[in-house]
């Protein structure tokens, strides 16, 4: 019965299509081809426009304020941007920024090597969870500034204290994200991997880690925010180069222009890293997921 019905349906469809073809051939001159309403591009332009407008508004407020205060307190935006240009053109900027980035990078690397495996173990083994939960929670509540001071006192005025301060500040947060992510992974897929005798390595790399990626990326985003703060503090306290050191130097000669110029160039680099690199990384590792944002306006 059903197969007959299906066949009948298929036949009817064929007739319909044939009819439509004849019709469309007749009306070719009169009717337009179906066309998709394409406001996608407009939407993209609108979003970029809003972001640019937001930044311009901030600069406008700054400029208005600078009219009412002496330049030692609030320098004009134009003067500050000239200072930024000087820092960048003398090459000073790249070496100082490089030192800061290296400290954040190394500290981050150490934290990831320690925290991701720890988080996975905490998510899989109850004993690890019970044992490591208290230190991780305690570590999370400790302010980064205190870690910075502790590390400088312990390691002295050198690179190690910067690496250690960055690493130890973000470790707890990274561990918590990985741990919670591991707990929420799909048990059915683990069963599936058992059914196909996947090796322990393959289970981690092919089944578990891909499910943790979005948790880890969120942790990296948040961790970077913490790391910038901590590294600048360490540089202010105890090192002789880096963005933090330059800011303190500007403070010592009481040059608001210099402090702001370093702060702004630092911000620009951070934005490039956070939105550019991490955004790109996120897209690259989630390209298997169809985007469905239909509910957003």
């Amino acid at each position, binding site marked *: *019965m*059903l*197969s*007959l019905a*299906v066949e009948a349906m298929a036949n009817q469809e064929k007739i319909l299509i044939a009819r439509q073809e004849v019709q469309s051939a007749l009306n070719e001159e009169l009717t337009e081809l179906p066309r998709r309403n394409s406001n996608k591009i407009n939407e993209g332009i609108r979003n970029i426009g809003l972001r640019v407008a937001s930044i311009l508004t901030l600069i406008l407020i700054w400029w208005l304020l600078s009219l009412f205060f002496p330049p030692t307190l609030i320098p004009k935006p134009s003067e500050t941007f000239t200072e930024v240009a000087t820092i960048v053109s003398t090459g000073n900027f790249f070496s100082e920024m490089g030192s800061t980035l290296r400290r954040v990078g190394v500290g981050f690397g150490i934290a990831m090597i320690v925290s991701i495996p720890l988080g996975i173990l905490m998510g899989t083994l109850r004993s690890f969870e019970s044992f490591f939960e208290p230190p991780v929670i305690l570590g999370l509540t400790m302010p980064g500034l205190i870690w910075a001071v502790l590390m400088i006192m312990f390691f002295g005025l050198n690179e190690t204290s910067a690496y250690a301060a960055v690493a130890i500040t973000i470790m707890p947060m990274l561990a918590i994200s990985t741990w919670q992510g591991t707990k929420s992974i799909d048990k*059915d*897929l683990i*069963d*599936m*991997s*058992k*059914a*196909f*005798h*996947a*090796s322990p390595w*393959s289970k981690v790399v*092919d*089944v578990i880690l*891909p499910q943790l990626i979005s948790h880890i990326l969120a942790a990296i985003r948040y961790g970077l925010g913490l790391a910038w703060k901590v590294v600048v503090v360490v540089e202010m306290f105890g090192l002789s180069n880096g963005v933090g050191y330059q800011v303190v130097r500007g403070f010592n000669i009481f040059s608001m222009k210099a402090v702001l110029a370093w702060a702004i160039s630092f911000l620009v680099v951070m934005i490039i890293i956070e939105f550019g690199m991490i955004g790109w990384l996120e897209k690259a590792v989630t*390209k*298997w*997921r*169809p985007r469905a944002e239909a509910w957003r306006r």
Partner: protein
Amino acid sequence: MAYVRVDGAVKFFDREDGTDMLVLEKVSFDAQENGITCLVGPSGCGKSTLLNAVSGLETLDQGHVEIVSNQSDAAHLPRIGYVFQDPRLLNWKRVEGNLIFALKGMRIPEEQWQERIQKYLNLVNLLEFRKQYPLYLSGGMRQRVGLARALVIEPEVLLMDEPYSKLDQLTARKLREDTLSICTRLKQTAVLVTHDVEEAAYMGDRIVILSARPAHVTEVVDNPFQPVARDLDDLRFIEFKKKLLKSVLRSMQ
């Protein structure tokens, strides 16, 4: 090829309150070589547990499962292909990547991968989608990937756990036809779990009827129709289906 012998399978589960619940009560059956054996019974009777016991995912409290294979290599793992109710694909891997995951797990030599992927994706009509990610495919196509993943390891036994129950009627029907013809062509030994009597009559060369929980075998019916002769609209086939339904209903009491 191989056949499966389940002998006196007993399995208890833990209830919420800590007491034991008997799920399988001495279940015995044979799944014959080169054919599909359907385990049919009411929902929640322990069919899936039984299938997991055959695959080794679950251990039995009593009784045993034997997979008798003519491959004399004593050391080798019995190769079992599993098709789940949900496709259970690795959505972050392309279709071919999902097949490679199974090939790698079963230690199939790498030089055979490409040829096998080609063959089995072609068999389930998905060759052109080998580079696609699963979430861009329809539900029926994903289930086909699941079938290809189970077949690509050239399993001695293919286990299927209600693989059509979450598909719409037309898709399920087409996929049943295709699976039956593929299994017949490959002379595949297979065990299919279902609660759908029509599906059991259509797919099963042998139909094992299980009671409500605790499950035991109430009847074993050999399908009088050859796979090619199973026509859902044929009156005699409908008669057979009705008879089977009566037996299943009887087993639920």
